[in-house]
């Protein structure tokens, strides 16, 4: 092989060289063999797959040139102050630069019903290997990021493992905090939630940077809602404004189960978020919600897939973006109704609130329907608010900045109000509000 080919090959892996991977493997040598094997396979896949190119349909409208993987490193955890996110919790775990901090002292404070497990993935690998094997990154990657999902799987060091047994209901949320600290720090957050038959649980992922430096985040979560389970998931992404972020959501909804997920995006320089919902049995319902405040030159690239694999399933997606400054958003959604998924009820909506004349919103709301007895609709709108409402605000002497904030909250409330938990609603509200005072 000639030298130029080699250098091209290297650029597709960036900082994530075989040497770095070898040192990572050495640092997690205590993990079970099956996991290490999966890591090895994932790394090979990551290295072999090309970076996205302009003609990839699943990267349409995305800025490909800024996806460079150069300049990142695995950093040791540092002492950081926990971010303010005040909600009463049933349990919580915090990870700094991929490592769980003070697990034992935190665990002492948990007051969980018997059978509920909240531990690290590392712990689960030994204590609950079968559950972990069955659910950890077990779902297909269908939204264009096989390469980055493989990168995640290769380098994921730890994460949260949550298991709620049959019939158990947790009222307070479980809060998982993922912190990236230091220049160039690469983090691979992971949260896995298994809600068994007729259980009920709320899990919150909080993604924050300890400083304003450029970091790399490549996270994933696996949500599984068993027969009749009710699972609520909220993710708040508040990485530094210089961070390159990837996040992969996978949701499996079984018979009569209900999953509500809400992802709030405010951080990162460029954030790609992929969310897959599989409705696998009759009565399954997936509600997919997202709110984005896009400011400065941020790019938020959201790709979703609702797959109806069984009859009588329902999905409802509502993604709202507020666009300021020179920000750019992409929403690409697809509803697939399999041939035998009759009586499907699927909805998909993307609303863009344009708050600046330089902002850019791209919508690709798609449908692929192979059953005829269905109710499927989708919609997309992009506009500023009604000029009359704006005139009203101005006539009251409200400045543009303030008006934008008011409009955004008015616009977002439709989504926020769907959360059952009021403290969670208020905590997310505060995260959004902080964006406007910056």
């Amino acid at each position, binding site marked *: 092989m000639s030298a130029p080919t080699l250098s091209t090959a290297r650029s597709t892996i960036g900082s994530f060289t075989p040497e770095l991977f070898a040192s990572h493997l050495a640092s997690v040598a205590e993990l079970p063999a099956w996991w290490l094997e999966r890591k090895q396979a994932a790394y090979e896949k990551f290295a072999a797959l090309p970076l996205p190119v302009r003609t990839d349909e699943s990267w*349409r409208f995305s800025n490909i040139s800024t996806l460079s993987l150069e300049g990142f490193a695995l950093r040791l955890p540092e002492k950081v102050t926990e971010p303010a996110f005040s909600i009463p919790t049933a349990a919580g775990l915090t990870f700094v630069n991929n490592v769980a901090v003070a697990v034992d002292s935190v665990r002492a404070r948990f007051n969980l019903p018997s059978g509920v497990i909240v531990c690290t993935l590392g712990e689960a690998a030994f204590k609950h290997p079968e559950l972990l094997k069955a659910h950890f990154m077990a779902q297909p990657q269908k939204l264009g990021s096989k390469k980055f999902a493989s990168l995640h799987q290769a380098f994921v060091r730890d994460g949260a493992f949550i298991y709620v047994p049959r019939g158990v209901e947790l009222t307070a949320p479980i809060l998982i905090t993922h912190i990236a600290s230091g220049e160039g720090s690469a983090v691979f957050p992971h949260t896995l939630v298994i809600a068994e038959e007729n259980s009920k649980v709320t899990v919150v992922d909080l993604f924050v940077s300890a400083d304003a430096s450029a970091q790399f985040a490549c996270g994933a979560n696996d949500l599984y809602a068993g027969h009749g389970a009710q699972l609520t998931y909220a993710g708040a992404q508040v990485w530094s404004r210089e961070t390159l972020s990837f996040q992969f959501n996978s949701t499996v909804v079984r018979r009569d189960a209900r999953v509500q997920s809400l992802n709030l995006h405010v951080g990162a320089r460029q954030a790609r978020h992929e969310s897959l919902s599989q409705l696998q049995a009759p009565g399954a319902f997936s509600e997919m919600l997202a709110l984005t405040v896009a400011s400065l030159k941020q790019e938020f690239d959201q790709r979703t897939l609702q797959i109806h694999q069984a009859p009588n399933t329902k999905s409802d997606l509502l993604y709202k973006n507020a666009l300021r400054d020179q920000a750019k958003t992409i929403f690409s959604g697809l509803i697939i109704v399999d*041939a035998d998924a009759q009586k499907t009820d699927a909805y998909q909506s993307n609303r863009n609130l344009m708050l600046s004349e330089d*902002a850019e919103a*791209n919508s*690709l709301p*798609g449908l692929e329907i192979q059953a005829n007895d269905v109710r499927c*609709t989708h919609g997309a*709108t992009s*506009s500023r608010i009604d000029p009359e409402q704006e005139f009203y605000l101005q006539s009251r002497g409200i400045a543009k900045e303030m008006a934008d904030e008011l409009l955004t909250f008015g616009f977002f409330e439709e989504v926020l109000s769907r959360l059952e938990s009021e403290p969670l609603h208020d905590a997310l509200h505060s995260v959004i509000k902080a964006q406007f005072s910056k």
Partner: protein
Amino acid sequence: MANIETLVSEPELATENPVSGIDQSRGDFSYDVKYAFDAGTGLNAATVDYISSVKKEAPWIREFRHKALKIFESKPMPTHWATKDLENIDFSKIRYYLSQGQKPKRTWDEVPDDIKKTFERLGIPEQERKFLAGVEAQFDSEAAYSNIKDIVAKQGVIFVNSTEGLREHPEIFRKFFGKVIPTGDNKFSALNSAVFSGGSFIYVPKGVKVAQPLQAYFRINAENFGQFERTLIIADEGAEVTYMEGCTAPKFSTSTLHSAVVELVALKGAKIQYITVQNWANNVFNLVTKRGVAHEEAEIKWIDCNIGSRLTMKYPGVVLKGRKARGEVISIALANDGQHQDTGAKMIHAADETTSNIVAKSISVGQGRSTYRGVVHIPKHLKGCKNNTECDALLINSNSRTDTYPAISVRGDRNYVQHEASVSRVNEEMIFYMQQRGLTEGQAMSLAVNGFINDLARQFPMEYSVELKRLIDLEMEGSVG
């Protein structure tokens, strides 16, 4: 209600009595026609030279064709987003040029008997033919019949085929030819640019409003013969014109290819309406590029109906170049077994206060697949632009398929865009009610489908909407039960 019986009549009946309707077997016929010029099969530089020589073209057109051929050869098939079915086109087995070597005819008497016979099979009655004086019928590559020209010529309208247009009126057509759709726009526009023949070149002078719609019928009438017509319509300031094209094609066992390029230019305040009823045989690849440029306060409206073909890929577009320009696409697609209607619209806003509207309705029958693909683009620093898009899909059978892939890009806070789509099936109660009234399930389904598209079909000229209704009735036969 009384004429339900005739609408669902047997094909043989229609053939015996052409007055009762358009050929119900949908052009399932062909005649042995002696072609005076035949470029053979396959495509290379010699084919292009041959076509150019036969047409006695100016050197710049020959050069244009050669350049296009290179672009066509260099471009890959767009299968990274389009259907893999495209790979089944064998370009080496296609005839790229056929002509009977006739000059376009002026009167009915001059039209050869065998062509008249074909018309008869199409079901156009003798009296109606005379009435439909504006029919410009393209027999394979060249216009074979035309006399509306005499009427519109008095208004200064130029209505000729592409060869004549480029040869006789280069000062008018050259300026816009290949400008709305550049050769390299896509693989198939490049192909057309290399081998085009036939089609209509129309110029409507300032302020002239053409009362009669200009019409052309296109057919493919030779096995493996691709038809590559090229149409360019220029409406000068304040002019108004409606153009209609419809087509039926003989059925053949091997696939044929139709790849047209249609360019429209509506100058300040002009209006162009372009109506298509496409009913190619089910073995035809129909890969067409259609786009118009609307200048200040101009209006371009595409009314596009696709019923036939194996695969149609067609997304009529409007570039809204001048302030307050308007663009509209009304699209109806019907996909039956073995068919894929991949249609849609493109609206490119390029000036303030431009508005666009897209209404697309599709019906999938049996294993048919209909796809809506759309682009709405509103770039930076425009204000007061509006787009409205509605797509509705109707699925008849449990194995019917529909897809929707819109792409909407908006910049800035002074524009308004909305897109809505829905997928549904025929209301069972409605069918039940109609059956109670004595209709068969098939007839009831037919009525329901016609009702679904009725508000769009009404926008077609009368004879087209009648034809459309009959075609839908025919397609719905045997779709239920």
